[in-house]
């Protein structure tokens, strides 16, 4: 009896494993053609050459996802098409709405699953997103076939000046990201958009940054000084303070440069310091005054050691604006 039970389970498990193996496609991105830079607001053209190898017949939608800066609003500003050995002419693709569960994704939607499995491509600011597209049609593929597809991605960039590590993923609507050979992925080096405004640098560690990246003077903003990025005059400081000027819409410069409780930063360890502030209160702005930007330094308790952009004597800058 026990022996029969054992064999019954063994058949079930073996059969399920066999079914899983035969009902799968493997995918790879063989190469990616993308420019090193574009001008702000231009179209970024990218070509992916993809190989799909099947074990058995399957009918699925093709999935292409891109890792991009959120500020591009890629869900609304991208067009993806592809050609392949098993289809005729350009095949259209459409954004998969956020919240749509990915296959074999444990209930996660595609953007969340991609971020969980594939990560952020080495981008150091949190303002990135995965945007996933499904082919408008599903395709029946034969078993033991090798299929080539050429994916054409066109994304309209925003006018912003930024550097970003783009990422790509291809998969299908049956296997999802269930194992590493079921999908193909590619992460590029630092891609540049030559745009306007302060550089939004996703590629390099930042000595200072402000969260949220876009805000107005009535937001609560968080300034972080990361002394671990490069040696600075504050390497041995036991406390760090903010020294900041607010530039008003009438061109005035209001300064708060003092070593008091309201400018004292809290230590996060490893020479990292942080402060949360409400600019309208810090600068005691009247109702009709607004700030267009900040210029800021970090100092020690005496004010004698002062660190600016790149560790030098020029201030860090921040522009108040919304997307």
């Amino acid at each position, binding site marked *: 009896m026990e022996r029969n039970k054992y064999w019954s389970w063994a058949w079930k498990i073996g059969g399920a494993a066999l079914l899983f193996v035969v009902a799968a496609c493997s995918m790879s991105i063989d190469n990616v053609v993308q420019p090193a830079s574009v001008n702000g607001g231009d179209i970024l053209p990218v070509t992916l050459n993809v190989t799909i190898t099947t074990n058995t017949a399957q009918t699925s939608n093709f999935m292409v996802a891109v890792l991009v800066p959120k500020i591009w609003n890629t869900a609304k500003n991208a067009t993806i098409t592809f050609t392949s050995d098993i289809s005729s002419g350009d095949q259209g693709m459409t954004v998969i709405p956020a919240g749509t569960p990915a296959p074999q994704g444990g209930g996660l939607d595609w953007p969340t699953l991609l971020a969980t499995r594939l990560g952020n491509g080495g981008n150091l600011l949190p303002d990135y997103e995965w945007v996933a597209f499904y082919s408008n049609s599903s395709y029946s593929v034969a078993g033991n076939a090798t299929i080539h597809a050429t994916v054409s991605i066109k994304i309209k960039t925003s006018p912003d000046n930024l550097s970003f590590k783009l990422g790509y993923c291809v998969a299908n609507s049956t296997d999802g990201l269930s194992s590493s050979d079921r999908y193909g992925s590619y992460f590029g080096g630092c891609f540049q958009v030559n745009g306007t405004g302060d550089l939004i640098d996703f590629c390099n560690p930042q000595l200072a940054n402000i*969260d*949220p990246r*876009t*805000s*107005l*003077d*009535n*937001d*609560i903003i*968080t300034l972080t000084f990361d002394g671990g990025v490069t040696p600075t005059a504050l390497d041995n400081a036991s406390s760090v303070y903010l020294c900041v000027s607010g530039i008003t819409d009438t061109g005035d410069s209001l300064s708060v440069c003092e070593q008091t409780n309201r400018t004292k930063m*809290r230590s996060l360890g490893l020479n990292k310091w942080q402060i*949360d502030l*409400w600019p*309208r209160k810090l600068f005691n702005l009247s109702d009709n005054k607004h700030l267009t930007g900040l210029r800021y330094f970090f100092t020690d308790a005496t004010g004698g050691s002062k660190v600016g952009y790149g560790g030098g004597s020029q201030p860090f800058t921040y522009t108040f*604006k*919304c*997307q």
Partner: protein
Amino acid sequence: MFFLSAIAALVLLACKPERLVAPGEPVKALSGSWQIIKATRNGTDLTNRFDFGNFRIHFTDSSYTIDSLVPFIVSKNGKWAFDDPTYPFQLSFTPADSGRKSSPLLYPVSAGQRNIIITFSPGCGLNSYQYTLQKAN
């Protein structure tokens, strides 16, 4: 026969339909002073990182006043209203000097205390703040 009819009539008259009254949803009362017990910005908890301690909003029947302002849905005193007094889903503020602003409203009971949770953007529209308010003692 008469006796039986009388008993039947008595039995029938003894039956009195019970009037079932559905329990009424209590009207959500805001009157009083409320303080911020939790604050998030884009999901990041700011409660212990920013000084919300002195902020108070005082609601009366239709007006509100604010002490020790922090970034909030409004920055001036004015009038408030629910979209529906019995089942409110929105809480609106109309400051004396500007137009009405509305926030989605949650009204949970936590640890025996009635909380209200409002969501708004004091600066950029994409920066979402959620404050949990509780009656101040």
